């Protein structure tokens, strides 16, 4: 097996987030509660956020899916927690660029998220990695409208 290639996808930090997800569960005191799924493969995420004064005070996720989708959700909640909504959306844009293999803004420290860069080499798995970010974007946008 070409395990070198696989190692590009399944970085240790990704497997760590998969095995020990951060911010797993649901926030009771939430201002955003959104469920999203990947209709072609059955991945599902429920994201709850507490947004106050334009800041994501807290974030939790629940759901089921492959290692990439669940690790990405865990990393996403970690990244946006405590950030301004605008920053969270900016991060989402950067992440999307990273997945598409485009040049991305590296002025912001992405932390663990950087480990997901290898996913861009596996086109069939990109939608696994972006599910949680899409849920966050949509949830935050709905919240702003209301």
């Amino acid at each position, binding site marked *: *097996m*070409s*395990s070198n*290639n*696989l190692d590009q*996808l*399944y970085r*240790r930090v990704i*497997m760590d987030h998969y*095995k020990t997800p951060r911010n797993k569960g649901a926030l009771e005191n939430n201002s955003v509660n959104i469920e999203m799924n990947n209709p*072609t*493969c*059955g*991945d*599902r995420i429920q994201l709850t956020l507490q947004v106050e004064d334009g800041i994501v005070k807290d974030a939790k996720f629940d759901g*089921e*899916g*492959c*290692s*990439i*989708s669940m690790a990405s959700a865990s990393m996403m909640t970690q990244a946006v927690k405590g950030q301004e909504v605008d920053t969270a959306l900016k991060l989402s844009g950067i992440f999307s660029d990273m997945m598409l293999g485009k040049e991305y803004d590296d002025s912001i420290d992405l932390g663990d998220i950087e480990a997901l860069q290898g996913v861009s080499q*596996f086109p*069939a*798995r990109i939608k*696994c990695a972006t599910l949680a970010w899409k849920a966050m974007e949509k949830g935050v946008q709905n919240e702003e409208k209301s």
Partner: protein
Amino acid sequence: MINKEIKSYFPILNQEINGHPLVYLDSAATSQKPVQVIEALKSYYELDNANVHRGVHTLGNRATEHYEGAREKVRKFINANSMEEIIFLRGTTTAMNLVAQSYGRANVQEGDEIVITYMEHHSNIIPWQQLAKERGAILKYVELEKDGTISLEQVRAVVTERTKIVSMVYVSNVLGTMNPVKEVAQIAHENGAVMVVDGAQAAPHLKIDVQQLDCDFFAFSGHKMCGPTGIGVLYGKKELLNNMEPVEFGGEMIDFVGLYDSTWKELPWKFEGGTPIIAGAVGLGAAIDFLNEIGLNEIEKHEHQMAAYAMEKMNLIEGLDIYGPTDPQKRAGIVTFNLNDVHPHDVATVLDMSGIAVRAGHHCAQPLMKWLEVSATARASFYLYNNESDVDRLVEGLRSAKEYFNDVF
């Protein structure tokens, strides 16, 4: 005859994927195409292409002969009584929608029942859901036995005199179960209902005889049986089709067009609005010739053997669960499984890196996934071009996947 040479008829199989010879185990999604089918399409487009049923010119006649010739091949292939009962459509999904929208709308009233099962593909669920909602009818499900089979007692308990339509898959695309559709058709008829059979996974793999099954409608897709995509068949009993209204209107399907009213062509053309799928039918005809040459009984036997061999080898992998009937004689060459602690997507990616193509996900059968209490599964499906060494590669790949993820944890 199925022998080692059979792979050489399928040019696509002769390539490397990620540095390994391709092992294609996703034929339940779509089958690969033999040179005979590819050549038939090429030759049709290079020599005979024209529109059918209209031109006076020679090419028009040739194209019409090819198209109607393919219909006769299909008729023989499923032993239908007449060519009027063979309608060319895009595929099984379109066929199910036609039955629901034409027969269903005309015959299902408020409070009537439509019966399906928990193991249906979405294409045999949603057309009935929509019909039931529109007509105020009741959609009922036959529960499955623990081993993923259907019992006739269950069917008898669900089908009543208010049932107008019973629709069931012949071979499950997830469990591989071969269902007793002939006996179910009898129960449907005793209650005055019609029997619709989703034959998408059956037609490629076993001899079909619609008269012997005594089903009222039978649908299948060309691309799963070595034919091209975009061509499928709806068989219907002539007396039923005669009384049904078309659902697509336009060219090809009309007899006389007035300013405010029109009349339809005879069967089967009244259901084939627009320029038909001519090349698709030619390709399907070539696929049928190819399958007949090998023999459907031979193919079915081969698949039972493949299922038996795969299940025997896969069962030796600790932590691997196989869904569906344990008796290989009760199933077609479809083995759906999960490797514990490793999500099926991850299994599929690891296998892909070794050149092995399997499907991962819910296989367009979300109610069945719910019944199995899983969110997704991996599926290896075999066809006439697969052999035991393909199974060995799969098993080796699964062992590597398990090892890889155990290491990572």
